[in-house]
């Protein structure tokens, strides 16, 4: 049997330019950094990217000019600053985008995960978010309607079914049974809505470990096409129970991303300048720095 455990470069080679990829990161947590860096190195262009609440991973892709269309529910790098590349792209209209909310993004993925082509919601009404969707790039994905039973006014959302979802998980077995620790935002719905699902795991465990805590299996193996085994794969963002965010590097990133020139330098130094994720981790301080960021057992950070 062919193993599902693959290298990030091998997996990214299988992603066609123009794909709709969904990313499981949120602001400064569990971002798909190793995957996004490789997408940039391999210059996968014309991507449609969707993410519940955008973070560093999507900001990198947008800054690198690989994103043609963005579907999101808002986002930032929390206290470290805004997603400068994304905000700049919106100001310069250098790509098209659909701006939703956390719950409407979650519902769009939920519909996709359930095999429903649409789902109703009571958010968005009376807001300019809805007006902009109706008159802009989202016009084909939202529709006002009434409940056939109660007559109540709803917004109907079209299901969101990414070509490929990339989700960071804490542990996975070799078949792709995955478990996530801590809050999961829309990870489950986003993963199960996708046509292809690729996970990036901090640790590969024997199936016997999965069988010991089967109620924690958020993603079952039969849905997973490939597993990327990459410890510290989300650095500089945090992974609860594994490692804290690298505050110094996040500040450095926000400083660079303030200008296109600064961002280009950042890419040169940390992405194009790194052979792979291990090489990148060395640039951040290697094993010594990772040891500092390693999570304490009880606190989880």
């Amino acid at each position: 049997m062919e193993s599902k455990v693959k290298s990030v470069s091998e997996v990214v080679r299988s992603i066609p330019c123009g794909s709709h990829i969904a990313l499981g990161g949120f602001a400064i947590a569990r971002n798909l950094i190793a995957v996004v860096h490789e997408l940039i190195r391999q210059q996968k262009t014309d991507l449609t990217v969707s993410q519940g609440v955008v973070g560093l991973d999507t900001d990198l892709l947008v800054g690198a000019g690989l994103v043609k269309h963005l579907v999101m529910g808002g986002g930032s790098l929390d206290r470290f600053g805004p997603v400068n590349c994304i905000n700049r792209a919106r100001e310069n209209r250098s790509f098209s985008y659909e701006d939703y909310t956390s719950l409407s993004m979650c519902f769009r993925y939920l519909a996709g995960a359930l095999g429903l082509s649409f789902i109703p919601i009571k958010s968005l009404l009376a807001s300019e978010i809805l007006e902009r969707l109706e008159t802009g790039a989202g016009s084909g994905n939202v529709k006002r309607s009434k409940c056939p039973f109660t007559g109540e006014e709803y917004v109907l959302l079209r299901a969101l079914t990414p070509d490929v979802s990339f989700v960071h998980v804490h542990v996975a077995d070799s078949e792709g049974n995955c478990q996530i620790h801590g809050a999961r935002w829309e990870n489950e719905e986003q993963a199960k809505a996708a046509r292809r699902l690729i996970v990036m795991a901090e640790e590969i465990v024997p199936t016997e470990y999965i069988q010991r805590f089967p109620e924690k299996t958020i993603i079952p193996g039969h849905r997973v096409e490939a597993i990327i085994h990459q410890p510290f794969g989300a650095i500089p963002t945090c992974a609860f129970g594994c490692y804290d965010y690298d505050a110094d590097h996040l500040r450095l990133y926000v400083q660079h991303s303030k200008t296109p020139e600064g961002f280009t330098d950042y890419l040169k130094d940390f992405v194009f300048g790194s052979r792979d994720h291990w090489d990148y981790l060395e640039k951040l301080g290697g094993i010594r720095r990772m040891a500092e960021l390693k999570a304490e057992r009880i606190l989880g950070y």
Partner: protein
Amino acid sequence: MAVTEGTRRGNARIDIHASEIMAAAGARELHDGEVIVVGLGLPEIASVLARCTHAPRLTTLLEVGVMNPRPRDTPVGLVDSRSFYRATCWSGFLDVMGMNLHRGVVDAGFLGALELDQYGNINTTLVKNETGKVRYVNGSAGGNDVASLAKRVIVIMRHEKRKLPLAVAHITSPGFVGGHSRQELNLRGGGPNRLITDMAVLGFDPENHMLTVISLHPGVELEELKANTGFPLHVPEEIPATPLPTDEELRLLREEIDPAGTHLK
């Protein structure tokens, strides 16, 4: 942030920060047994203060899938692992925002705002400068969902003319849009109920849904308030002073809830 006049307590004269008055005022808006969705910063501080005083059975939800966390260290964001510590439930958006907020069991949502107008509409998406140039910021995340669906919304923000314009540059989260009732807007949630700033506590007129002054923080003049507001404020005959935090509230805020003064400068 403005610092209020020092006030006499016994023989001691203590300076009370506006942020501390805001936190205490926010805490008083929360009742025991209520379920609230909070963001970080002052809203969270206020909810912790309420729980430590009059509302021990307050349930706090974070949209990402965390219930009743008891952070030991101050988180920088909702998904900062520090926000997960000692929670009673870890789930996700679908549970917190779907099966609780959208289900209609959230009593209050605690929001911040980039801009808020006379009808309580909130903008967290973009700013327009004098030349009309647009700069984008964070967007909604859960803000629009909370504003649409929570039984009532409490906003905490700094009181500045540019942040309180006659009309917001973008209605990210609807209040009483165009002065309409929530029913007319087909919204389930009750809408904005309180605005707590560093100068005053304000509410919304039940008839015309416009912002009205409820109380002024000690040391703040009405003219000063008007001068820092971008639209005409409804002002009642008598404006009481916002109650200052009690000694116990101050002790909790300074010694237990935010000793580092991260949010209470």
